[in-house]
């Protein structure tokens, strides 16, 4: 057979390199690693001194902070404008004074009972949609994922439709959002059973599609068999999604679940970043995928379920906002979460303002408007993707 002639012939074997010293700090490399160039790569802080590499990384972090600051300012400004615009035609100064002091009966009532809850709900629902969309896209590694994908929105809508059809909604103000939340809860339980505790992303999508279709079919059945045309019209209009005539009761109903959902999703950033490398690599990086998926499903269900319960199904926000902001955060799924939440809040506040300004007396539905804005944005994204692919 063949034999090796001598140990020294082995390539890549024991390199007897003399101990190198860093040209910046004059020290040998730290035990954690190996020096290759000797120019600041000793593992100490020498690269920073040389201004190598950390500069642009630092710039990326600064750009991210600037983006977050800008989006926060945008949300704050839109929130303020949302408080100042409405059919009551109050002067800006008058309305703010009324809001803070509570004096001036009619104005205070309009501000505190109509405009403030409406603006708060726009922030809550918009942020939930943006956050959930970003988290789902990150988890499924697919830019087409959106909060409705896991079937919770459709099931919450079914609950609301049943409340409208049976007349419970008319009997009690909170019967509709209550039943919608029940629908979301049933959906999430079914989803977890269907998708299994250890299934991957694919089973989750399949289970979500199955649930969405079933809830959609049952909603259609309710409409189909509805003996009362007024109830049917109510249902159709409710399903378009709106924030008109919501009160603080709706805010208090949605707030705890929404916050719980945000909390569950907020901790997923690092796992979603690691998933950039695929499920196998992420798991080997110490990410517990079954736990991540459970937190994601519960988080999306709680925040989006609560949103649908109080505002109806509002489409495109959760799809388009992560899409628009992704290039601005260097495509990092973890960073996209916060940016997308703020972006979603801003988009929904702006859309709800537009609804009030464009056709103030026709009750233009919010969900209709977001779809009308969202679809052309989507066309643009398709065009851009095609151009990048050179096709």
């Amino acid at each position, binding site marked *: 057979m063949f*034999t090796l002639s001598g140990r020294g012939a082995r*390539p890549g074997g024991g390199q007897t390199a003399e101990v190198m010293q860093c040209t910046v700090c004059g020290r040998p490399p730290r035990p954690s690693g190996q020096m290759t160039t000797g120019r600041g*790569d000793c*593992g*100490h802080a020498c690269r920073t001194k040389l201004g190598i*590499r950390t500069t642009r990384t630092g710039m990326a972090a600064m750009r991210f902070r600037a983006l977050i600051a800008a989006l926060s300012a945008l949300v704050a400004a839109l929130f303020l404008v949302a408080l100042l615009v409405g059919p009551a035609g109050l002067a800006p100064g008058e309305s703010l004074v009324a809001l803070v002091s509570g004096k001036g009966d009619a104005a205070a009532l309009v501000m505190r009972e109509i405009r403030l809850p409406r603006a708060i709900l726009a922030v809550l629902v918009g942020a939930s949609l943006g956050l959930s969309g970003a988290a789902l896209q990150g988890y499924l*590694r697919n830019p087409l994922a959106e909060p409705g994908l896991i079937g919770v929105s459709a099931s919450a809508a079914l609950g609301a439709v049943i409340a409208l059809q049976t007349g419970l909604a008319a009997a009690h103000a909170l019967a509709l959002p209550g039943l919608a939340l029940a629908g979301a809860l049933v959906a999430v339980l079914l989803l977890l059973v269907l998708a299994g505790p250890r299934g991957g992303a694919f089973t989750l999508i399949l289970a979500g599609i199955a649930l969405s279709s079933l809830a959609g079919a049952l909603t259609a059945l309710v409409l189909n068999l509805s003996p009362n045309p007024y109830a049917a019209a109510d249902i159709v209009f409710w399903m378009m999604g709106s924030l008109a005539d919501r009160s603080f009761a709706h805010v208090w109903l949605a707030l705890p679940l929404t916050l719980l959902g945000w909390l569950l999703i907020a901790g997923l950033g690092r796992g979603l970043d690691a998933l950039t490398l695929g499920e196998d690599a992420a798991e080997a990086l110490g990410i517990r995928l079954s736990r991540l998926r459970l937190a994601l499903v519960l988080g999306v269900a709680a925040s989006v379920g609560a949103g649908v319960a109080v505002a109806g199904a509002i489409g495109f926000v959760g799809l388009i906002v992560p899409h628009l902001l992704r290039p601005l955060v260097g495509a990092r799924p973890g960073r996209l979460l916060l940016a997308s939440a703020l972006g979603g809040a801003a988009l929904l506040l702006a859309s709800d303002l537009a609804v009030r300004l464009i056709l103030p007396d026709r009750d233009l539905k919010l969900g209709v408007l977001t779809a009308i804005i969202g679809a052309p944005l989507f066309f643009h994204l398709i065009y851009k993707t095609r151009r990048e692919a050179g096709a």
Partner: protein
Amino acid sequence: MSGLILSHLSVYRGPCPVVDDVSAELRPGEFVGLIGPNGAGKTTLMRAALGLIRHKGASSLARLSAAERARTAAWLPQMREVAWPVSVETLVGLGRTPHLRPGQRMGEADRAAIARALDRMDLAGFEHRRATALSGGEQARALIARAVAQEAPVLIADEPIAGLDPAHQITTMRLFAGLAAEGRLVVAALHDLGLAARFCTRLLVLHRGRLEGDGPPREVLDEAMLARVFGLRAYLADTPEGPIVQPVEVVT
């Protein structure tokens, strides 16, 4: 420094064993080449050794908690997946994930590890390129750099050099040999028997899930084994550059 001890490791797909009773003690300082024809169970063996799939028998890595294992072993899957157009630096930085506590940001040591890994994979200057815009081979190197940046005592790589140009195949094998010489354990599934023979310190031959050979390359790679396991006739020679294994013809 930790190695990897497999005892009676088996993986079943239905009733069929895909990995059948594999035992081996892999020590720090070794560069172990895992060779075998397609479907021999190389990937399954490595995933089971990491505890990523259900298995019978024991693996010293699979016993660790997820976080501890991630600090002990870096895993480079065969599927080269980069889901988002992140920068190469961000991609390589994902290797630092196991070293960060929840909420902790990357520090100077992490950035130094990233820079070292980039240098070693000949990717200096690529930091701010989008990983999805790289060529296939460059992307493969960036993903290897990610695993190297993890700086774990054990590196397990599934066909790391497939799709690299010849020069980068050799530099990658040399890098792995260098990591092993530093006292790490490197395990790589390889199809290039020539490079495996030249650079690995030890070869494990897997055939239909069973361990059919284990030892230094020149002892493992003989005509009988190549014919039986790979169905190959090869030109074998010893040169001052190390052993040469060049498959020549298929034997039936």
